[in-house]
């Protein structure tokens, strides 16, 4: 070996060693063993201390709101002896972004247990250790997809409105339908139209319903889109001048949809923390028969002296739950502040799918008993729990700060069902039978805050609920996920995780109508647009009594 070659070899070895030392110095975890204890939890945003998460959720990235030069976070089993899968993050930035692969491995390993999060900060040379907090990993996974609408805080115009599909296992978010960028072949859009009311059958997306209400400026027509077997088609729920379907619920058989037909008016408060108000002047329930496209109703669910809304089927399809109150504005000209005393009861009516007959009508929870108005009931897929909103008055919990989520254990109502035999004929003037609900009294859930909690959706395994909450600022709705165990106890909810930990602090859109599903929507935006503009493929409904079907 010549001298020159020797020099080159030595230089190469030296450079390699230097690079290796530099890499080790950069990558090695800092020595925090001598860190002094602060004796309190670190301030982190979003709050994820002691929350209960599903094992398949995306990393709960967070921001450490403590001043420091350097940050160190260790996520582990909590046992010093068990270092396998330990995640260590070092950064000079306050944003803690957890590696997705390692996070999922750690959650998978500790399913049904807890993981520990240690937060360290360094100012100068000294490390400080904050009190360790736990993240509880539930044994049950959550449905992989959440569907929601993103809108600005709406007042009058309906612009920048879109339906999104979010994969909860990561941060992938896709547009399902956008009211501004959804263009038909002529380049027209719904133009300030409302896209909303997405309803899935049994948490699957192969059968779903979607509502589009274009503005007067648009050349599009109002449309109810029915997606079946991956194909979208336009169906008609309007009869004459009557409004189309509003709130909808699939019958578990997939043969029917219960819907409400509402006459809603918006008002504004000249002075109140919440500026907006929505008043329901009139509402009735009806059924849409998927096979024939017929719209039918029954006097028991469309009484002229009452307002019926928010239909939801029991998982066995034998009961239709809904909210109802006495007609408060028969002339439709009453001042809106007269609605401040209007309170809805939670009712249910027996239904026989074979004969398509409605039977016994019962009051499940009366507003007098609660002292609140009851709205937006949703039943867990196992049929055990019924969750609803309770608030001071009216039917729009989103705009009422005192709206909270309550739950009723329906298993304690089961005995009531056998008390009377179902009636078969319509009985328009029959009064509802109040149920003895002493044992099944509604329980205010611990997931509530002092601001509005409203729209919620169960997971297919009945162990998770995604719900809307304005707890952060009273203006922007954020989505929270909460674990509900077999006994109906709630874990601490956590906010829908985002890649950017600081995302919510400057995100100026509000979440709306969250729904969980086990699979993604396969129909494309273009197909939905084509279906909206296609002629209705179903015959127009005839609004016949259900008994005539």
């Amino acid at each position, binding site marked *: 070996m010549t001298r020159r070659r020797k020099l080159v070899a030595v230089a190469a070895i030296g450079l390699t060693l230097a690079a290796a030392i530099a890499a080790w110095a950069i990558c090695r975890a800092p020595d925090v063993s001598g860190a002094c204890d602060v004796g309190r939890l670190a301030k982190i945003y979003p709050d994820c201390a002691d929350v209960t998460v599903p094992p398949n959720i995306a990393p709960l990235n967070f921001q450490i709101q403590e001043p420091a030069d350097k940050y160190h976070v260790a996520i582990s089993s909590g046992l010093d002896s068990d270092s396998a899968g330990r995640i260590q993050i070092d950064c000079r930035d306050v944003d803690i972004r957890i590696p997705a692969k390692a996070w999922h491995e750690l959650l998978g390993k500790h399913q049904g247990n807890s993981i520990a999060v240690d937060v360290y900060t360094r100012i100068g040379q000294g490390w400080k250790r904050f009190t360790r907090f736990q993240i509880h990993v539930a044994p049950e996974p959550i449905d992989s997809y959440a569907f929601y609408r993103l809108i*600005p*805080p*709406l*007042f*009058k*115009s309906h*612009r*920048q409105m879109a339906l999104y599909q979010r994969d909860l296992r990561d941060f992938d978010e896709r*547009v399902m339908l*956008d009211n*501004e*960028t*959804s*263009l038909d072949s002529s*380049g027209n859009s719904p133009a300030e139209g409302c896209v909303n009311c997405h309803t899935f059958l049994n948490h699957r997306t192969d059968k779903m319903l979607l509502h589009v209400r274009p503005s007067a400026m648009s050349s599009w027509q109002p449309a109810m889109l029915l997606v079946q077997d991956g194909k979208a088609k336009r169906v008609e729920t309007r009869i004459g001048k009557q409004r189309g379907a509003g709130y909808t619920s699939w019958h578990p058989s997939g043969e029917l949809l219960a819907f409400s037909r509402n006459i809603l*008016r*918006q*008002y*504004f*408060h*000249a*002075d*109140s*923390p919440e*500026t*907006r*108000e929505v008043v329901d002047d009139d509402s009735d329930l009806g059924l849409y028969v998927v096979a024939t496209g017929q719209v039918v109703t029954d006097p028991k669910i469309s009484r002229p002296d009452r307002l019926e809304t928010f239909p939801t089927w029991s998982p066995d399809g034998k009961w239709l739950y809904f909210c109802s109150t006495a007609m408060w504005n028969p002339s439709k000209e009453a*001042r*809106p*502040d007269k609605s401040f005393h209007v309170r809805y009861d939670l009712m249910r009516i027996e239904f026989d799918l074979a004969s398509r007959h409605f039977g016994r009508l019962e009051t499940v929870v009366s507003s007098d008993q609660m002292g609140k108005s009851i709205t937006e009931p949703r039943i867990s897929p196992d049929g055990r729990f019924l969750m609803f909103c309770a608030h001071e008055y009216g039917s729009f919990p989103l705009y009422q700060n005192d709206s909270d989520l309550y739950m009723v254990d329906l298993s304690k109502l089961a005995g009531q069902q056998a008390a009377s035999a179902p009636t078969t004929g319509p009985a328009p003037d029959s009064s509802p039978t109040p149920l003895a609900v002493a044992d099944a009294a509604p329980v205010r859930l611990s997931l509530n805050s002092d601001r509005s909690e409203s729209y919620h959706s169960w997971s297919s395994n009945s162990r998770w609920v995604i719900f809307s909450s304005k707890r*952060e*600022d*009273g*203006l*922007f709705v954020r989505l929270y996920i909460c674990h509900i165990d077999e006994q109906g106890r709630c874990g601490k909810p956590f906010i829908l995780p985002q890649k*950017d930990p600081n995302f919510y*602090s*400057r*995100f*100026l859109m509000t979440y709306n109508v969250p729904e969980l599903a086990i699979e993604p929507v396969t129909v494309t*935006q*273009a197909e939905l647009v084509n279906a909206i503009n296609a002629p209705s493929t179903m015959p127009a409904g005839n609004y016949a009594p259900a008994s005539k079907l």
Partner: protein
Amino acid sequence: MITCRDCGPALTKKVISRLTPRQKTLLPVKPLSIQPWLGRVCGMLFFGGIFVYALLGIDSTLRYDWQIRGFSTLPGFLAGFLIYPGGPVEYCARLLCQGYANGYLGALLITAQCAGLAALTHLYIRLLVGRAISFVGYIPALLAICLMSAYDHHLSVVLSVIVGLLLACLFLLAMRRIHNGWLLLAVFVMMLCVGYYLADVAIVVFAPAAALPQLWRHRRWPVVSGVGYLVLAAALPLASQLWLFPSLEFGCKSWFLPEPPEVRVMTWRLLGFLPVLSLAALIYRQLRPDKSATQPGRHLILNNFIPITGAIVVMSCLGVACYLSHMDNAGAKRNLMQDHYACNEQWAELIEFSRTVPTEAYSSQLCWDVDLALCMTGRLGDEMFAFPQERHVNPDDSMVRTPANEYKLAQTCLRVGRANDAEIIAQESITTFMQYPRAMASLAKIYLVKDNAPAARRYLNALSHDLVFGAWATNWLAQLDGDSTLAGNAEIQRLRRQSLPRRDMFPGQGASQTYVAFDSLGTVEGSLQKDPANQMAFEYGMAEIMLSKNLADLIKLAPRIKNMTGPAYVTPDGRRRTPVHFQEALAIYCDKAGPVKIDGFEIEPATLSHMAEFKSIMSTHPDRQQAMALTWKFRKTYFFYNCFGPGDYR
């Protein structure tokens, strides 16, 4: 910029002297252009003129106020522009538009755009023809300055043309080196895709500019050369919009039919300029392939006359273009200046500006803005009838929905203590005009007044990434960090004191119903019950009563005058006074309904004597026109408005 230097190598006199006469004829010759020093001076004067016009004539700060597509350094903001064709240039346009907030920087940016267009056009022609053609580069600069005078979102168009020109120059360079037709086609396709992605509409400039020389070169095979290029260029955006970006908001349609129509013409002048120029240059090259026949220096007078005349023509063209653009856009500029003064609370400037506005251009919006300025300067009760008036002091359905108008209205509502009205209007503005920074700032302040610091923080956090409003937002965030209740902030505390006490509801359908309703005495009373010293509510209430001539309501509101303070109600020596127009209104009422005693409300003898004189003229002259002429000296009084108003009686 467009000097007369040719592409030939510089040869010394010694070398030239050794050449044969025939060799001398092959020497590179000076082009048909002005002398180098004259060219530089002309260029400096031209772009100096553009700078001055941009600074004084266009005033980029007005353009900044008008922008509704904001810019932010928020994470993910850039990524949103990288996912669709034309996004990168739109991002750059929004970034550069932030510089328009400063008049000098804005003028510099406008000049730089014109200079960029001129330089690239000059280079393109040199590459195409083989020599420079003087003055040609100035033409797109003149077209661009006309477009910029229109106060539209022109930046992305100009930047797209620059990208198109740059690609066209690169393609001509490639043409010199690449002789394989297929390889050249591949280069063209690559550049086409790059141009389409960077600045979608750039291909309208690039494709013809690249195709025409090819078409010219391969005239026998036009389909596989130039025509093929043009077909590809037409197919790319159509295919892209059909298959890749079906939901593209700013697609081909918006290229060809940009709004408004007057901008459409100017845009297409700029976009169509280069293809036309390319064709003209190719014909020129064909007609005069060799300029060597003309020897320089042989026509001494001609050689000096042409450059000087050319420079004069260029400067004259600039002057004419600026003058015509300025005249064409005088109305738009006037509206923007009005908005600018009102949005930036330059009340004195707004009042003075309004005096220069001719009657035919004096809009309802200006009436409202001037009344607001008078109110904010404490002059409403004394001077409002010196300015044209409408029937209402607050906007009605006729208000044009622009970001500036909605911002001003929201601010007015907030100032008068109607925070919820302000919130509705500002939120509507955000919904309609996206992330308009002024509306975001307005909302942040509204939520601070409503004592909802977390909601205010959302807007302040987002706004802190705005290049212009960032410092303002950061300052508020620091205040909130210090004290989330803002107890030490006098303005916020005053606005909180004023906010309405009653739980009132009003319908949400129809635009006008969310506007602050001063025509309802109950609303004004409500505001004054909450804060008896709410001077704006009182003055707007009084103004509304006077404008609607419903003086019976005056008696209900007038007693509130005793709670008013400030120079309009207290003289420098501490005596209380009553604004003149209020005196005039009460004098008319008392004249009809009998004397009324209102505590703190005084009618001065001078007012009564004016009324007596006015009445005397009116009673002796039943003819309205004649009476108006005779009482003209009272045109700045309420007596005159009460008889003849509303109207412009300056």
